């Protein structure tokens, strides 16, 4: 996976977030502050602009620029969280120009560690970690089993989507929704839902660039 793949990933995220903007905001209106869709739409729009203004030369640089942009531009919890996730991935990838599935797996694991260090959330707290952690495991297993990249990214997307749906019955223990107590149960977590979009975009970026 080369630089163009990672640029395509960011573009696919921006497109998906824009298309799902109202859906994400509706999820957030139920248990948060109704700004998740617009925050992410604006944030990834800025990422797209930043990448166009100064095209990075390596996959790691793409992710580091995306992360720094989200941290500066979003203004909600999703800015620091996604920003840290992409920056940690970018650091993990260094300045290698062609990324293997194993390297992507290590980087996604670093993203999860960064998010958990920042937000102190564990699986089951009804956060983005509930989508990200199963996706990290799915990719690690795919690498171990030696499956081909398309199938590995499909497994990542499926695991994230399943993880997001599994947040519906949970009661939030972290984030704005935790103030609602038991009223947070019965709604899909918006952060987990957007994480599923972000990780599903990996697969669509693959279809586009391979």
């Amino acid at each position, binding site marked *: 996976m080369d630089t163009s793949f990672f640029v395509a990933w960011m573009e696919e995220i921006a497109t998906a977030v824009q298309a799902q903007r109202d859906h994400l905001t509706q999820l957030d209106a139920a248990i948060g502050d109704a*700004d998740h869709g617009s925050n992410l739409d604006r944030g990834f729009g800025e990422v797209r602009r930043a990448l166009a203004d100064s095209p990075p030369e390596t996959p790691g640089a793409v992710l580091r620029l995306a992360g720094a942009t989200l941290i500066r531009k979003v203004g909600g919890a999703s800015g*620091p969280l996604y*920003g840290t996730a992409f920056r940690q991935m970018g650091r993990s990838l260094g300045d290698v120009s062609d990324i293997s599935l194993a390297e992507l797996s290590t980087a996604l694991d670093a993203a999860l560690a960064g998010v958990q260090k920042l937000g102190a959330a564990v699986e089951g707290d009804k956060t983005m970690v509930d989508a990200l952690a199963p996706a990290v495991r799915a990719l690690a297993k795919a690498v171990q089993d030696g499956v081909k990249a398309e199938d590995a990214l499909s497994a990542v997307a499926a695991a994230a989507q399943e993880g997001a749906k599994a947040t519906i019955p949970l009661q939030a223990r972290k*984030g704005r929704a935790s103030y609602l107590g038991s009223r947070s149960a019965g709604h899909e977590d918006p952060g987990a839902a957007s994480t599923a979009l972000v990780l599903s975009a990996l697969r669509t970026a693959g279809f586009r660039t391979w």
Partner: protein
Amino acid sequence: MVGIVLISHSARLADEVAELAAQIGGRDVPIAAAGGTDDGRLGTSITKLSAAIDTVDQGDGVVVLMDLGSAVLTARTLLDEYPRPKVFLADAPFVEGAISALVTSGGGADVKAVLTAAEEARHIGKF
């Protein structure tokens, strides 16, 4: 003197808590508010927070108080990205913590004592 920074989702909330604390604790303590996003919405801004810390940093350290979730994440992210040895995040109630911190700083305490004063404000009962 130890500087105090208030980061809130709301610009008005941060400004008014700063004003209230200064009125009670004295106007000589450096205090700055970082409220709202860069474009004036509800939310938090790493750029505003960084500028606020610079404004109040006299070399004796800075204590940062946060209102809710993303303010905490923004503050942690700033210190992760640009570590500053004498800047501390207080796990404290926003209003009482700000007043305690400002009063303690005004008395000439060091940054650790100001941090402790802010955090211990959660034990001050209202009755």
